[in-house]
């Protein structure tokens, strides 16, 4: 079993596909980091022009003033508890910036790395995973090598399982690589620090409204870890689904086409069918898991982290079962 997986992994590496994925990541991260750097410089220039002073040495005053304001706000008896906890969190962040001399305008490698995955999780990362997964089985059918695999004295389910586990290994590698690459590349642009800055999280939805009572700060490294873990979960789910399609469909092109169009459609499906409750059970709608962390989601009653994870998990498990049942029962006629 172990040697089967090793065999599959080496096959994937020699196919150069993994190298393509890495190359795409490196190139895109470099471009994004450069772009961020440019727009940051522009914002600073605009700010210093508008305020008449350089924003770099002026931010302390502003932060001091904001802290005073928040303190006043917290003392006011007319504030409700909801807004108080977010004020408290905001004050902690400002205080941290002051204590550690961090200009809130500046980017950091940690911020960029987190932001990158938050933006990549619903389309870019799934597409990279599809590049790897969509021809794992159908590729063998297309070029006929599946015969050579199946004539070996190994049960079919073992062959498929080794392929599936290989996919899971590669998913970890891709997520890990995108973390390392974006931390290092953006580090050259923004400096390597920022991993201990506080980030607010812990939002909930109560009665269709964003509830910030439980908001608190976690260090950026922990936040980043959570984001990348959710990214891995998304990779696992999308990988499973596209793996199933690659089992069901003989041609690699068709396999890539099906899963890609589904994903892209998912990005606007909720826009057209927002009143139709069944859309929330589609996996594409639930891919933006990181939004639950950052509180930047549209609060919809009934949709929360646990719901989305259950839906995604349901899709993944169903896909795995279908893949195995179909692969062990089908007649291979190549």
């Amino acid at each position, binding site marked *: 079993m172990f040697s089967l997986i090793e065999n599959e992994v080496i096959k994937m590496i020699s196919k150069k596909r993994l190298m393509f994925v890495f190359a795409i990541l490196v190139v895109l991260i470099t471009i994004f980091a450069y772009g961020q750097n440019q727009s940051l410089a522009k914002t600073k220039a605009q700010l210093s022009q508008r305020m008449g002073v350089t924003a770099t040495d002026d931010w302390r005053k502003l932060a001091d*003033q904001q802290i005073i304001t928040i303190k006043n706000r917290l003392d*006011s*008896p007319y504030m409700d508890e909801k807004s108080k*906890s977010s004020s408290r969190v905001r004050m902690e962040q400002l205080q941290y910036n002051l204590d550690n001399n961090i200009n809130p305008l500046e980017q950091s490698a940690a911020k960029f790395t987190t932001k990158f995955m938050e933006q990549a999780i619903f389309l870019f990362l799934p597409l990279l995973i599809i590049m790897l997964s969509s021809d794992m089985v159908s590729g063998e059918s297309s070029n006929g090598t599946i015969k050579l695999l199946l004539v070996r004295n190994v049960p079919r389910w073992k062959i498929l399982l080794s392929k599936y586990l290989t996919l899971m*290994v590669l998913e970890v590698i891709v997520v890990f690589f995108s973390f390392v690459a974006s931390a290092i590349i953006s580090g050259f642009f923004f400096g390597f620090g920022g991993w201990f800055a506080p980030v607010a999280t812990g939002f909930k939805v109560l009665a269709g409204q964003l509830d910030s009572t*439980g908001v608190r700060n976690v260090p950026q490294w*922990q936040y980043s870890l959570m984001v990348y873990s959710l990214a891995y979960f998304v990779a696992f789910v999308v990988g499973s689904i596209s793996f199933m399609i690659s089992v069901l469909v003989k041609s690699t092109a068709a396999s890539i086409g099906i899963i890609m169009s589904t994903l892209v459609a998912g990005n606007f499906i909720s826009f057209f069918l927002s009143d139709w409750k069944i859309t929330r059970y589609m996996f594409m709608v639930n891919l933006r898991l990181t939004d639950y962390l950052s509180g930047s989601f549209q609060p919809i009653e009934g949709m*929360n982290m646990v719901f989305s994870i259950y839906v995604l998990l349901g899709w993944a498990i169903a896909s795995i079962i279908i893949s195995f049942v179909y692969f062990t029962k089908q007649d291979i006629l190549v």
Partner: protein
Amino acid sequence: MLKKSMWYTILTIASVGFIVLAIGFYQAIMVTTAVNPQPNPTAEVPQTIPDSTQLPSKNSNLFKVLILGDSVAKGTGDEKGKGFASYLPDYFKNSTSKDIVVENAGIDGLESTGLLEQLQSQNLDKPLADSDFILVSIGGNDVRSILSLNNLAKEDQFKVRQDSYLANLEQSIKAIRKASPNSFVIFIGLYNPYEKVNDVEDIRLLNAWNYDTQQLIEQAGQGIFIPTSDLLKFNLGRYISKDGLHPNSAGYQAISNRISKSVETIIAGASI
């Protein structure tokens, strides 16, 4: 051989990575589902509205001002942390011999809907009934979000926002009048804090907003609308705070000065 060592590297990274990611995944679920993970000690202090019954009621030698509304009312942006609550007494004390007491009930980010809810919750009934003057600033947050729209959408959205704002304000003033029939209402008009938003269309909208508000205040009687857009228009650098939105200390003082000049005789009349 190279492939063999590569396989081991990949396997190590994958297994370590998997464990780390599993921990992160668990944390992510905990953080989004846990019920109030950190019960804040301060959160458990019961929120008591300051008991106005302790203060001697009207007709005594106190002159009471209640401040209602959004962040401008509250004094946000003042680098000294003061705002109207501490400048108004300075300017009013020349006109009255009574001691001036200010109650600040302003809330950052309050919209007109929020003000109406606040008034209808009857938490404020007691302070309302006691006050001689009521300073109101509201509407800035209602109108702020439409500024970024294009002109066509802006026009439509503006109409919608303004209608709901005016309806809320009318109800709010009724509620104030009901709780406090004899007080005098001072309404702070909207100003434009943005230098770049200066096309005629935007100014027309701002003026329409202020004009309709003023009409409403005049209809209700016993109140005054204090314009601020003219005062701040060419003084943004001097009067607007670093956040680019609220007045700074000098700005609050300038507006307070204007208010005190407008209502001098009324204060004098009320304090006889």
